[in-house]
């Protein structure tokens, strides 16, 4: 799957395109880990081009969120989450673990 990352002064932007399922979730995790293992814990995840996410994908986000929020050092926020994905997070009872922004600019500007 296509994943791009971009480093800003105060946060990193990760954008994934396509399906995040058991097959592709590891690639997303690698992208996040490349950032957190570099000691940066403020991440914006742009989901505008994510067409599908399963619980396995959600767990990758939440493992990353745990890493980011530990010691109050950061946050993983999500931008451009479509209704269907938002509904999935909500049904699973996991929506509350994320700050969600309407667009990437708002999300980057929040750090």
């Amino acid at each position, binding site marked *: 799957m296509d994943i791009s990352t971009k480093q800003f002064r105060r946060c990193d932007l990760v954008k994934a395109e396509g399906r995040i399922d058991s*097959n592709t979730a590891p690639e997303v995790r690698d992208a996040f880990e490349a950032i957190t293992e570099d000691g940066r814990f403020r991440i914006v995840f742009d989901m505008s081009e994510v067409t599908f996410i399963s619980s396995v994908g959600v*767990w990758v986000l939440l493992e990353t969120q745990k890493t980011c929020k530990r010691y109050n050092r950061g946050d993983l926020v999500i931008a451009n989450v479509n209704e269907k994905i938002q509904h999935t997070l909500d049904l699973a009872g996991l929506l509350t673990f994320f700050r969600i922004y309407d667009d990437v600019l708002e999300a980057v500007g929040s750090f």
Partner: protein
Amino acid sequence: MYKATFPGRFKSLAEISEFVSRAINEIGFDETTAYMILVAVDEACTNIIEHAYGGEGQGDIQCSCDVTEDLVKITLRDRGEPFDPTTVPEPDFSVPLQELNCRGAGLVLIQKIMDETNFESTPDGENVLTMIKRK
């Protein structure tokens, strides 16, 4: 009646999704419902590969979709370990983030998305998961 068999690999998930998507297309679910059905199927197939077969490449997943005017019945069959979902306790996600145990949302989603789910392990070693979604 749509029926197809897929190798029990994570790569098959996108194909199974495509297959189910085509099958339920004609019944005219709203976009969100159609999408959520694909989530349930993905969760179920992931569980088959991960838990019933204990990993990729151990066996096939057979998927069939029965479409009537006002419902779809999706059946998934595998020949992995038998399983009784009623033995799985409901996970508690209303905990602080750092205490969150990052697993166990799959069955929750399947149950919340589908109107009926039934799991049976047959004597000849087949596991049959039937999921019904009404319009």
